[in-house]
């Protein structure tokens, strides 16, 4: 508390009382009202029964583990393999999309940082940003046009004779993974770019002079520098993919659910906000635990995120 007061007085002497009050008030409002309290409310809600409005505050309005029990065991005996399977599949798919993005983006980030220059570089940066000013929904729609049964890919494939009947890319989830990987390319490129850019060109040339092959240069010189950037980008891409809702709704196959779609169904179709809150809490906790685990494994700190 004394530390906070000292900081406040320091800020007052630097920027004036008005600014200090504004900063303190705004940060307090943001942290408390917009971030912490909603999460607590959701957590509390997830431990409650779904009651009609008249019974709220009554004797039956008590805390319960029923919603979490439902996630684990379903209605009857045995595990709720359906919902847990959806969660596992979502996580696995998110990891897959993240790896795909790292593979796609690492070379282009390196080219941006060390190969391109002048007009080429400017054009590339604009070319990277422009597609991401277009609405997320429309980007998913573009992939539906591309991968649909009468879409362009099927048209080309059939015309060239690779396959004779239309391939159902939507049911095979190809469209979904491609769309998700596309959606978050920008975040990954700029995260890796920011890290790789700090690399001194002389180090690469020194390694080349010593006779290292180009993949060895990347493995031993560039990758260690790029690691924080890759971790930061991977964290964002993973969380965004696991929490994606629009792309699975538009591009997902008919028999294929994303965990966020389960949450959406509990809220909007079943009207059971309590169970939806429980599922949302599960998603949040599982994703955060996974990310922190990965950060521990790869020895990266949270301060690297968002740089």
């Amino acid at each position: 508390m004394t530390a906070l007061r000292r900081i406040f007085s320091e800020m007052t002497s630097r920027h004036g009382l008005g600014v200090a009050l504004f900063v303190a008030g705004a940060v307090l409002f943001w942290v408390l009202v917009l971030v912490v309290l909603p999460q607590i409310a959701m957590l509390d809600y997830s431990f409650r029964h779904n009651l009609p409005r008249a019974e709220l505050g009554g004797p039956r309005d008590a805390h319960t583990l029923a919603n979490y029990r439902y996630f684990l065991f379903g209605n009857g005996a045995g595990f709720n393999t359906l919902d847990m399977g959806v969660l596992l599949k979502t996580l696995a798919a998110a990891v897959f999309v993240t790896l795909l993005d790292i593979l796609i983006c690492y070379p282009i980030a390196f080219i941006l940082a060390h190969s391109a220059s002048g007009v080429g570089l400017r054009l590339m940066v604009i070319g990277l940003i422009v597609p991401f000013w277009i609405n997320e929904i429309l980007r998913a729609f573009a992939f539906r046009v591309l991968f649909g049964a009468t879409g362009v890919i099927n048209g080309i494939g059939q015309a060239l004779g690779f396959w004779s009947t239309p391939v159902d890319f939507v049911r095979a989830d190809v469209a979904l993974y491609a769309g998700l990987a596309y959606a978050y390319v920008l975040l990954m490129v700029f995260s890796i770019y920011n890290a790789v850019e700090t690399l001194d060109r002389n180090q690469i040339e020194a390694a080349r002079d010593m006779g290292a092959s180009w993949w060895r240069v990347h493995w031993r010189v560039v990758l260690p520098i790029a690691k924080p950037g890759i971790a930061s980008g991977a964290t964002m891409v993973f969380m965004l993919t696991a929490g994606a809702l629009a792309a699975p709704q538009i591009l997902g196959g008919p028999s294929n659910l994303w965990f966020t779609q389960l949450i959406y169904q509990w809220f909007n179709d079943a009207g059971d906000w309590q169970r939806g809150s429980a599922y949302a809490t599960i998603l949040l906790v599982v994703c955060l635990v996974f990310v922190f685990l990965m950060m521990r494994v790869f020895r990266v700190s949270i301060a690297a995120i968002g740089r």
Partner: protein
Amino acid sequence: MNRTAGGGLFSLGYALLFFAFLFGPLIIMVITAFNSSSFPRVVPWECFTTEWFGVLIANQRLMWGLWTSLWIGIAVVALSVPLGLAGALALADLGPSWRAGLYAVLITPILIPGVVIGISTIVLWGAIARVFGAGYDSVIFNGIFLTLLGQVSFIASYTMLIFISRLQRFDSTLTEAALDLGATPGQAFRKVLLPFLKPAIGSAAFIAFLASFENYNTTVFTILSGNTFTTALASKVRLGTDPSLSALAVIIIALTLIGAMVKEADTRRRERLRTGRMARAGVYASPLVRLVAHPAAVFILLGALAGLAIWQGGRHDASACRAEILREKQETQQRLLREQQERMRQFQQQSPAVAPAPGNNPSPFGGAFNPNSLAPPAPAAPPAGANPSPFGGAFAPKSLAPKP
């Protein structure tokens, strides 16, 4: 392109492939906007048409959503820019240990899934409404209010990141110099720090508006029964697609490209002014070139081009071509029908002995359901070659009989 790590040819090829991946889907979507086929596709190409733009504008739900989104976006900018600035200033003045903690708290809204943010917002305000006994018509149950709060909670983190990166380049001795020269702390803030942050305020506002306008995951929960542009768009895409969405993409891409080009012209002009190349370079000696390269001129030129395209597109009438396509389709249908009839007639003439029933039976079951088919196999059963069944006569009465 250098050859120090990964050859130049590889770099060039990879960059080309990458940008093909980035722009391919968008280009194809743009093409589908002008095809008159009622399902968005490139092949088969039917007619060049501009009617999908009209269909788009006639969509009441989308247009109302557009207004809602604009208002929400402006309000989100007004809230999240000051919040992000406050967060960045607080982080700049904190000690290392507090700094790491607060940074973690303020950055998590970016990491939390948008779905979770939306849900937690409506749950919290629902609880508050119960405590205060607010009715469903109060502001707490207003979708725009809730959307505002939900979106600001994480968009403020984006703006904060922009302010942080700008503040890192701030020379704090400037503030100290101002204080030494007798400025009050408030004056130093307003006259030294804020002007320095001005470009960051601009880009933060832009990013915040874009993020608010595009957001789906949070908004789809917090908007309750209402609609923003993006949620209306999503429900339209989910229910069924028609090329009016491609038309929308064309509009957005055109606006984006105009914006990017004007921005580029502006950056170049500033750079030239800064480095003094304007005075030296021969090209810019001509007043005409200088006028054309000015961002305002670029904007006017591109705007005029877009206006011309709209005017021309509005006059384009695809109805003749459409009628032609319809006639062709009908002709094809007629032809197929005639061919079918012809085939049936030929078939009838060829094998009059096949069908014991009156008339011919084109059934794929090869006459298995004919009244006679269950009768004991007659000696005069048709030869297997005359059977038109795709099952190769498997359903022929004799096929299950024991082989002699």
